[in-house]
């Protein structure tokens, strides 16, 4: 039953994703890509659980730790770089009408 529910969630999210993104103008494709890239760093949640429960098991701890580091780079770097890009676009909008 859990399995079916998870698949159900997956399918709905796929349709939602298509609906959301098809309206993004081409000027914003790069920030969209790095922003969604940061979201894919959500795997950090799995990494935290994997690293946290690996008590005493060295290999599991190493795997989990590496996963946490990589996912953190992905999340933090992704959001910051997106923010940096978007702030450049923002200046243009304020500068335009004035």
């Amino acid at each position, binding site marked *: 039953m859990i399995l079916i529910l*998870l698949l159900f969630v*997956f399918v709905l*999210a*796929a349709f939602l*994703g298509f609906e*959301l*993104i098809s309206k993004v*103008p*081409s*000027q*914003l*494709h*790069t*920030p*969209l*890509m*790095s*922003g969604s890239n*940061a*979201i*894919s*760093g959500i*795997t*950090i*949640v*799995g*990494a*935290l*659980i*994997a690293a*946290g*429960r690996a008590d005493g*098991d060295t290999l*599991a*701890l190493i*795997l*989990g730790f*590496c*996963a*946490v580091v*990589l996912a*953190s*780079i*992905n*999340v*933090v*770097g992704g*959001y*910051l*770089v997106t923010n*940096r*890009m*978007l702030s*450049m*676009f*923002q200046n*243009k*909008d304020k*500068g*335009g009408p004035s």
Partner: protein
Amino acid sequence: MNPTFDPDSWSPEATATMETISTASQGSALLTTVNLAYIIAAILFIFGLKLLSSARTAPRGNMISAAGMLLAVTVTLLDQQILSYTALAIGVVLGAAIGAVAAYKVRMTGMPEMVALFNGFGGMASLLVGWSEWHFLAGLPALAMTQPLAFSQSVIALAVLIGGITFTGSLMAFLKLSGRITGRAVVFRGQKLLNLAVAAVILGAIVAYVLTGQSGAAYPVFIGLLILALTLGVLGVLPIGGGDMPVVIALLNSLSGLAAAAAGFAISNTVLIVAGCLVGASGLILTVIMCKAMNRSLGNVLFSGFGSTASSGTKGAVQGEMKPIGCQDLYYVLEAANRVVFIPGYGMAVAQAQHLVRELGEILEHNCTEVCYAIHPVAGRMPGHMNVLLAEADVPYEQLMEMEPINAAMEQTDVAVVIGANDVVNPAASDDPTSPIYGMPIINAHQAKTVICLKRGQGAGFSGLQNELFFRENTRMYYGDAKSSIQNLVSEFKES
């Protein structure tokens, strides 16, 4: 508490039972809280993505999405499976520091390789989550499993497969984009056969792994699968040339999301599934948009080895010669023009010329010339690459034009200045059916009264095609490094 509880009947076992019950109910209350927080996180991601669709709301969207991430991470720390926080704290701080430094130090021209690298890290993290889940599953009694074993194994295998391809594929893209290895397509005999064989062996390994069950015997198969996945990522990106990178980066972006979703299935975590799938869908849409902008199918981009040969296609059909123009003459041409369109390409990014281009544009505007910038969807090395560069250089947003409106106005344009772009202005795409890029929508620079092409040398572009535009009667070549060429022009304007 039980209302009929009688203190006289007190026994150690009874207390023990009661404690078990109360921790269990606390546990399920906590689980509900965590899952509710995950739902909120998912909503924040969705709103964040929605707000990204306009330049005005996009920064807020990014913040909202980051808040969702923070929420998801915070509540995950409450998870009762987590026994020790030391490794987590060190890992997060280390990763965050590296990510922050990278994000602030990267130049806007280096954005495609940065995004590729981040992408690869995300994919690798999903692979590691899958691998570690293998260990967890191996140590778990069959009764404690929440999902059928074969399902768990399949999704672990998928997380490892997609994560592995994303990781090495992104690394290859990073190396190609940063020029550490050749950006050209690398093809060799039997390449397709080899890739097909690797893919078939991977499929076989997954089936063997699931059939063997979660035993020690399956471990070598599992590790083999992991190595093959990493290999396939390298092999897959090898035959793809630099100009096709927008498609590859978009596709890898999609895969990194799908890897996270597969990891989410492996650990039965809804927020991973939702967020991963959103990214998977968005990456796929971008991939399709990029393919359409080149009038090619995804299969053609991935497997054809496009641009591997230095000369192919319609070389003989090009007639005439390239006519160079000097700085001084070009100054007079631009000085007299009423309407100038700049058409930037990857060459402008390589030369870091965007700031000077903007300066030239401003000078022209002061000279009462109408200036705008024509952006082809696949100009550069990632979707929207040119927009980011010109935005960095403070080019007004309304001067950035998309392909269709600019083409409609091209005939009224006095001068089209092509800066480091090649295939996206090649007229062969519209009038030579034998050309490999025939059918690709282009910016019709050749319809302008005069075309100026900034180019480093006389070589062909990324696709290996001779560009007929360079030989046209109304075209003048302005040779040299884009940055110093434009610098010279700007000084010419300032002196007079």
